């Protein structure tokens, strides 16, 4: 029982960041019909920027997190303007190939710039855990969960309550009608890709200090982000949050009670199952095969 409680806490913390990753990816797909292969690399980018700001420039930890996220937003906007804008109107496969190319460039640039040795990011949180009965958790992880939830909430408010959000949702639903109604779809695309990228960079900035920062840290995470959005239905925002937490719990409980060997495989097995039974995702709003 104690073990189950601990797994529940761990799974929640893990799920929060997975949700952050998933929502960025699914937003980009929903609005732009682009499968963002650079998502894992933006995660890595966010983590390395945090490392550079905290360890090399000696900036404040919290300020560094914010700056790393904003740099992620800027990189996302740059990718959109330089790469995706010229390819607007190209078929989905060409865009995917270009994105794979971009991911190769980003990952190898990280490897070249930072070398293969993984880095630790110092944090102002102490190394002693908070203890609540049978459960223990690091203050840093609680902070990460808190920020992740705040970002998810802020993102939801942005979509629901702002003009930009309404334009985004309109494009999400039907980009042609939206453009007829005066929404500048080009601008919305840039904003969407930048925000989605910023969320990935924020996830990296938050998790980099929890674990370690290495050039290949985005590989598995990128694949898992795919798993999350497939679970929730590609282009489904609430689905991505549910998918994120679902994957967090499945990995944590599957790893704890079934087998730690297969821990990272559970997510992928789940996808195959979901796609074999319900190809539209677990919580899809409507059938999407495009």
């Amino acid at each position, binding site marked *: 029982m104690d073990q189950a409680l601990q797994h529940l806490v761990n799974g929640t913390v893990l799920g929060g960041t997975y949700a952050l990753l998933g929502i960025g990816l699914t937003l980009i797909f929903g609005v732009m019909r682009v499968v963002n292969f650079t998502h894992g690399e933006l995660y890595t980018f966010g983590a390395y920027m945090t490392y550079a700001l905290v360890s090399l420039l000696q900036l404040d930890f919290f300020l560094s997190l914010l700056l790393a996220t904003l740099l992620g937003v800027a990189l996302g906007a740059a990718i959109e303007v330089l790469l995706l804008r010229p390819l607007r109107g190209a078929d989905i496969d060409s865009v995917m*190939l270009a994105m794979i*190319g971009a991911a190769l460039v980003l990952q190898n640039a990280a490897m070249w710039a930072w070398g293969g040795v993984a880095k630790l990011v110092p944090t102002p949180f102490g190394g002693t855990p908070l203890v609540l009965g049978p459960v223990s958790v690091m203050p840093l992880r609680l902070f990460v969960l808190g920020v992740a939830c705040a970002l998810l909430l802020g993102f939801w408010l942005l979509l629901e309550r702002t003009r930009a959000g309404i334009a985004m949702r309109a494009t999400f639903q039907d980009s042609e009608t939206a453009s007829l109604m005066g929404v500048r779809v080009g601008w919305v695309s840039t904003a969407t890709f930048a925000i989605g990228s910023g969320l990935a960079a924020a996830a990296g900035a938050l998790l980099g200090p929890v674990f370690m920062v290495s050039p290949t840290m985005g590989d598995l995470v990128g694949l898992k982000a795919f798993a999350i959005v*497939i679970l929730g239905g590609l282009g489904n925002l609430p689905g991505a949050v549910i998918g994120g937490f679902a994957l967090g719990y499945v990995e944590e409980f599957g790893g704890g009670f079934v087998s730690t060997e*297969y821990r990272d*495989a559970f997510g992928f097995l789940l996808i*195959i199952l979901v796609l074999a039974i319900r190809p539209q995702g677990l919580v899809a709003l409507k059938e999407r095969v*495009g």
Partner: protein
Amino acid sequence: MSGLVGWAFVLAMALLPVVAPDPYMLAVLTSAGIFIIGAISLNLLLGYTGQLSLGHAAFFGLGAYASALASLGFDIGIGFGMRLRLEPQPVYVGFLSAILVAGVFGWLLGRLAFRIRGAYFVIITICFAQVLRMLALNWVELTQGPMALVGIPPFSLWWPGQGVVDLTSKAQTYWLVLGVGVLAFLVVRQIVHSRIGRALVALRENETLARSVGIRATHYLVIATVVSAGIAGAAGSLFAHYVRIVDPDVFLFIYTVTMVIMVITGGKGTLWGPVVGGLIFGLLPDMLRGSARPEAQWIAYGAAMILLVMFLPRGIVPAVAAWLPARRPATQALPTPVREGVG
């Protein structure tokens, strides 16, 4: 005409070990050739069915494991106290089982491809390779997991007058890979130029129209996927008996990406595209060895991919064919189905 050029190219490649018997060059070409065969098979999916399959390393890896396991033999428990046993088989049995196993999985993927398309299909193919990698890592009794299958026997071939002999020299292995490559090329050409090929292109260009005139989409897609997977399996088998070690990393996404780059550089949907692209990207890493860090090379390959998609979306072969209209009137690219009809 272009057929003659093609056979001249094959002849030149075949004479290479006699004219310039540099074992290192042959080793590099053999290794490149194996991936070219993979690229030829991927082209059938990517170029002719229009299905962006990013799990092609799965078929390659399945072939490698099937061939290695058949020639090494295995003895595993299958539950209820029963055991499944296979004595070590000759290498050609491994080769055939590689094609068979990869083909069966190709059939499954082909069935699936019909249910889900576009982005979903792409992601599921990636996950498919990933799941196989996890399986290969953890089903230790069968695959030796991360410890890899080692001691895989080299190629053997029945030779007139000598019976079954091991192919040990560099030139022999090179010729074998070249032979399989030519065979793979001819199989794909046969399919592309047949009724199946025309139906595939029709489906790629306008599925609704193609269906309305009675083309059985599932049927043709499945045939193409099975053939493509089978050839990739054959390439995997060659890889297993050439490198003589198979580890779960054969399922890595980067191997798929390597084949994808070969196909789109040369020109997807053209018969010679994967060969040209494959030669470029098969030989480049060895030519740049020592002069450019692998990271720099990968950055260049990634950038090349982006630039190709933007400025040369049909690849090198169609572009060159367009520049040399007098010399090579017949491009290898299939004409668009609108002119050709749908058969």
